[in-house]
């Protein structure tokens, strides 16, 4: 919209921001600092700050232009502009793995990943990169329950199979060498 105006912009000579845009744009996607600054700046900014800038800046650079033209205080909510909580998928994975471990006969093999991913999701929540900590807790709890049930089942099987009568009854109809 304003792109064709940029080359012939009468204010361009007096505007110090324009030359900075091309050089400033590539820095932000690659720079990790915005992520570490996330907790310092509450996530209320992305929603509030986003609508203000497009009017003042070229829509061609929806994520880059605001940083170049904005005062320093507004540059920090940048990571929230595209995706407010980029690590929310971790908790969803944790919950899904926890549920799947109950569908499977032996939940050890998805219960353990559910706990690992869920704990990482909680760390992401602590860093301000995710906001679904409850879902992560659910995934971790489901994973632990699945592990406990699996271990109890294995112990139960081991005890039962040590009993010759049970083993014979269990193998009834089967021809097994084991």
């Amino acid at each position, binding site marked *: 919209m304003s792109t064709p105006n940029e080359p012939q912009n009468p204010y361009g000579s007096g505007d110090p921001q324009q030359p900075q845009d091309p050089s400033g744009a590539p820095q932000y996607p690659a720079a990790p600092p915005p992520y570490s600054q996330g907790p310092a700046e509450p996530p209320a900014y992305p929603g509030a700050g986003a609508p203000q800038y497009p009017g003042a800046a070229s829509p061609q650079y929806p994520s880059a232009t605001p940083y170049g033209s904005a005062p320093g205080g507004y540059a920090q909510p940048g990571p929230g502009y595209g995706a407010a909580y980029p690590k929310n998928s*971790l908790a969803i994975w944790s919950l*899904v793995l926890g549920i799947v471990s109950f*569908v*499977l*006969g*032996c939940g050890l093999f998805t219960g353990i990943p559910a706990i690992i991913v869920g704990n990482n999701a909680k760390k*992401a929540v602590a860093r301000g990169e995710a906001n679904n900590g409850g879902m992560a807790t659910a995934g971790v709890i489901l994973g632990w329950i699945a592990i406990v049930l699996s271990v109890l089942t294995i112990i139960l099987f*081991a005890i039962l199979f040590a009993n010759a009568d049970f083993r014979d009854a269990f193998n009834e109809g089967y021809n*097994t060498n084991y």
Partner: protein
Amino acid sequence: MTTVDDGQQPQPTGPLLPDAPASDGAGRRASLTAPLVTGGVVVLATVLLAVRDPHVPHSYGGCPLYVLTGLWCPACGGLRATHDLAQGDLAGAWSMNPLWVLAVPVVLVLWGRWVSRAARGRRAGPAPVWGAWVLLVAVVGFGVLRNVPAFAPWLAP
């Protein structure tokens, strides 16, 4: 040998692969150790399954769900399918656990991507959310359908 449930062994690699690299939030440089160790363990398990036939009843224990309820869980037949695949018997593997046969190529591709990314020192981003939903729907749906008598001839082990 162990009381590991029949069909559980292959399952973990599916969800594990996309998660393991994604779960590390720190900016540490990825190394090849994790994917190569994972691959080695899977290869060893596959060789064991190829040599020691899981078609023999209770050779690897039994599925707790099947023993307790008589229902087939989504992973039932997974060990037998892996054995058949390792022997080159695609039809036999398909008759044991079609979902696992479909999942094996996906797992291999994900593992290959994991290795190639780690070789370049890159970490995978968070696994996409739609992958989690696909996994949930596939596993739960398959577990339900293979216990429906109408579908059992095709889906049950």
